[in-house]
């Protein structure tokens, strides 16, 4: 891994922290809060690729676990990782990695459809599989019950997939990093 890769990983982890400073938007009707920070793993995977994207989110999560209040709302510490929603935080790392793998696969013919597909696979399917499993273990409910409980958040995530797709395609046009590395 080159020095440049390390710097990309570190600076993207810093971007992830800065996204936590954006105030959360509450969706009308459902009242579900949407934070800009959860865009971070989608963007990390889609812009840096699987390895660098996954590592940058791992780095961010490690800093949170070490006790820095970097999660949106100034939360942090080991308790968040071990708490009921900890699966979603750990899942971010794997989501970024999976998104990166898919985007790399589609890279030469990347368009709105396969970019949105890649981001939704990692950022929704994989992320919720891990997050819901964790909730079901901690709260002692079935996996299905956890999935139903998480359903309202899907509206916000669909919006995030759309935003991350637009950002990924815009950045690819002006600053393509994935093709450069391979």
């Amino acid at each position, binding site marked *: *891994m*080159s*020095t*440049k890769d*390390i*710097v*990309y*990983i*570190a*600076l*993207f*982890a*810093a*971007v992830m*922290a*800065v*996204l936590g*400073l954006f105030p959360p938007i509450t969706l009308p009707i459902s009242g579900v809060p949407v934070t*800009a920070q959860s*865009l971070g793993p989608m*963007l990390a995977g889609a*812009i840096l690729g699987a390895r660098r994207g996954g590592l940058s989110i791992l*780095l*961010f999560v*490690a*800093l949170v676990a*070490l*006790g*820095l*209040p*970097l999660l949106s709302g100034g*939360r*942090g*510490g*080991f*308790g968040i*990782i*071990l*708490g*009921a929603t900890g699966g979603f935080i750990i899942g971010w790392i794997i989501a970024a990695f999976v998104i990166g793998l898919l985007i790399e696969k589609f890279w030469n013919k990347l368009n709105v459809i396969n970019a949105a597909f890649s981001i939704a696979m990692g950022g929704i399917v994989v992320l919720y599989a891990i997050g819901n499993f964790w909730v079901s*273990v*901690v*709260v*002692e*409910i079935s996996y299905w*019950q956890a999935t139903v409980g998480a359903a309202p958040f899907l509206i916000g995530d669909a919006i995030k997939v759309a*935003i991350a797709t*637009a*950002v990924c395609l*815009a*950045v690819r046009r*002006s*600053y393509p*990093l994935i093709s450069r590395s391979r």
Partner: protein
Amino acid sequence: MIAGLYIDGHSALHRAQAGLKVLALIALGTGVFLISDWPVLGGVLITVLALYPVSGFGPKILWAQIKPMIWLLILFFVVQLWLNDWQAGLVVILRLAGIVLFAGLVTLTTKTSDMLAALERALMPLARFGVNPEKVSLAFSMVLRFIPVIAHVGHEIRDAQRARGLDKSIIALIVPLIIRTLKMADDVADAIEARSFDPE
């Protein structure tokens, strides 16, 4: 620099080694999932609660730890009450409160720099598998250095987009933020290499 959640003090927990505290946390986190007996879990929670005053933290700090999870705990209790019975509800919330409050205690009594040092030591054996501890600590310190810088860039971009009437568009804020960060990363990498940093 980013202030951690550490609160200064001189208790036994403050003086204990960071690595030891994290190991204790992992042991507790595993232990409580092996127990499904609510009086025992209640005992664990009371012990953890008692450690707060012992470490010099008043009720205000304790409440700040409990407050963010109180609604979640109530929700989980109600869900269990509905699906099973009150004992099952108690098990779930006592277990969760026990771990989260102990984790909070570890965070409150350990400086981030000590945690980092402990992490670096823990990574040493991984050097054989291609993990370079020097690169890892470079990455960690770089994040902390660049959060204020990138936050500042974010403010600049918001001001610029406000002048164009675009400050409500997330895309118009994030695209320039990321492109400027990536450009900055190239410059930083050049600067590091110009100083002959070679972790290979």
